[in-house]
């Protein structure tokens, strides 16, 4: 072992290699910085010196940004900055957890359908198509209404609505990859199906799934906003960017800042996740240099 270690000492460890490539990718770094920033803000909300996001001040309704309220106040005098910071929690949670649910359910089902084919594929695919036949948002609204209004239920509803996307994407990719010679040679060295799926199929179908996931986080954040608007997501007075934006649209003329900041935040987070996903895909692919 000593010999091996010595001889390979000049090679960077694989973790370094991925990180190095990622760092060299400037747009990916920008994405990473954006996502990290919003994550930090969301996590630090309880300790930041900001007013209570639910505290109303009838003496300061719809005030423009000022030294006292950096982002102004909303229609019942709540501090927009404070609501933005607390709302980041709801929005990021909704984005990440609902996509997490969709990936955790969708990818294994897609792999099973694609790899084994036959009746099992037929069953999974027909169910997927049935779910896809309903528009994403309508399905999420129906599910959220069925589950009852709360942020958790909204995340579950969005997650389930996004699942068929991942099943179909994964299945298609697996069908491509499973006929590759290296899968055959994995079988020829006697690897059990479990290992073939986890080490030969899964890593080779991962890149498009990763990109789809970051794109879907963006969609999910917007879906959460829509559900909150309908009263099916974040419950008032707790803030989320979506519900803020949807209230703000009634005051676009009188108080444009109410819409401006949540809009910018959603835009930046979505952009951040997209850039991050692109960069990750490139950095994780050993074939690209």
């Amino acid at each position, binding site marked *: 072992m000593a010999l091996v270690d010595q001889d390979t000492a000049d090679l960077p460890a694989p973790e370094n290699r991925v990180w190095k490539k990622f760092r060299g990718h400037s747009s990916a770094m920008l994405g990473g910085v954006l996502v990290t920033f919003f994550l930090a803000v969301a996590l630090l909300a309880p300790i930041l010196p900001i007013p209570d996001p639910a505290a109303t001040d009838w003496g300061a309704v719809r005030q423009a940004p000022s030294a006292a309220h950096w982002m102004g106040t909303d229609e019942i005098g709540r501090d927009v900055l404070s609501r933005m910071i607390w709302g980041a929690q709801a929005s990021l949670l909704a984005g990440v957890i609902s996509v997490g649910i969709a990936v955790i359910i969708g990818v294994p089902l897609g792999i099973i359908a694609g790899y084994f084919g036959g009746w099992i594929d037929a069953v999974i695919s027909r169910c997927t198509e049935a779910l896809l036949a309903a528009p994403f948002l309508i399905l999420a609204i129906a599910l959220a209404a069925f589950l009852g209004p709360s942020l958790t239920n909204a995340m579950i509803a969005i997650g389930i609505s996004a699942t068929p996307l991942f099943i179909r994407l994964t299945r298609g990719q697996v069908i491509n990859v499973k006929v590759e010679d290296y899968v055959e040679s994995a079988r020829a060295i006697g690897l059990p199906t479990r290992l073939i799926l986890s080490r030969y199929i899964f890593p080779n179908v991962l890149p498009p799934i990763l990109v789809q996931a970051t794109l879907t986080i963006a969609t999910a954040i917007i879906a959460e906003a829509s559900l909150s608007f309908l009263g099916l997501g974040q419950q008032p007075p707790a803030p989320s960017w979506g519900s803020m934006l949807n209230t703000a649209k009634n005051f676009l003329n009188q108080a444009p800042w109410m819409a401006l900041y949540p809009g910018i935040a959603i835009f930046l987070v979505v952009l951040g996740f997209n850039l991050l996903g692109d960069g990750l895909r490139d950095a994780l692919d*050993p074939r690209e240099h």
Partner: protein
Amino acid sequence: MPDQSPLLSLSKLSLRFKGQPVCAVEDVSLSVAAGEILCVVGESGCGKSVTAMALMGLLPPGAAEIHGGVMTFDGQAFDLTKDRVPSDLRGGRIAMIFQEPMTSLNPVFRVGEQIAESVQRHSGCSRGDARLRSLEMLRCVGLPSPERLLDQYPHQFSGGQRQRVMIAMALANDPRLLIADEPTTALDVTIQAQILNLIRDLQRDTGMGTIMITHDLGVVADVADTVAVMYGGHIVESGPMTEIFENPQHPYTIGLMASVPRLSGPRQRLTTINGTVPSIRQMPSGCRFRTRCAFAAETCSTRPAQAEVGPDHSVACHFAPLEQMLKVAG
């Protein structure tokens, strides 16, 4: 040719792909002894790769139905119609090398990991030991600075190097039998010779039996101890290599040998076998070569039996041996 009881024998393998009228492989029997190289030769689509896949138990279930065939390996018998070839045999005591080294390695893992995976699967040793074994194997197949290559990805290797990696992977568990499916077809000629020499040397050192599938008679002449010639899913002739080359008895084998270009002798047009291989849907009954055979007669519409024409040399032709055929043809 070492005279031992065969390491592997396959008797009367018949299989048919779903939706096809005739068997893609019919009554194919083979045997290889330890330390022996058997070359299975034939044109594309004659069933040679399918036979190898069936031996490895790699045919996709559902796509092909096996009608008959008993494989005996190292004293264990498997009825291929019922038993699945156990997966711990694959990659352990029976190893396989494929035709396309460029795509036969998982692009997302370092080659060292891939070799180690096979070692760990079959010997259950630790990761460190498996890594050492991978290093030893890379050195063994003649790759320069194996310590460095261990941590490289497949795309950083050339075709010849990848085929060496595939060989390293196949031999990492000291298999008793190696099945090489056109191992040199995708490589250029100089690399081809190197890889063949490597396989032959390793085979000599380890005493494993080898089934080499090829359509290249040059390869056969180079490495084979025994040869089985396949046409249209049948074995038409089998025997020791020198016998097949110097004394071919089946009209198809004769045609094959005549069509090899030679450097010596007067320049002349290459001899060819007339016609093309009929598609599986239009396979003639009886002798499947009869539509292209100069000697074809009415009796050829029945299946010819294997006739012994010499020691270990058998031919599936109604007119064998050749003298008789020439007499009939006048």
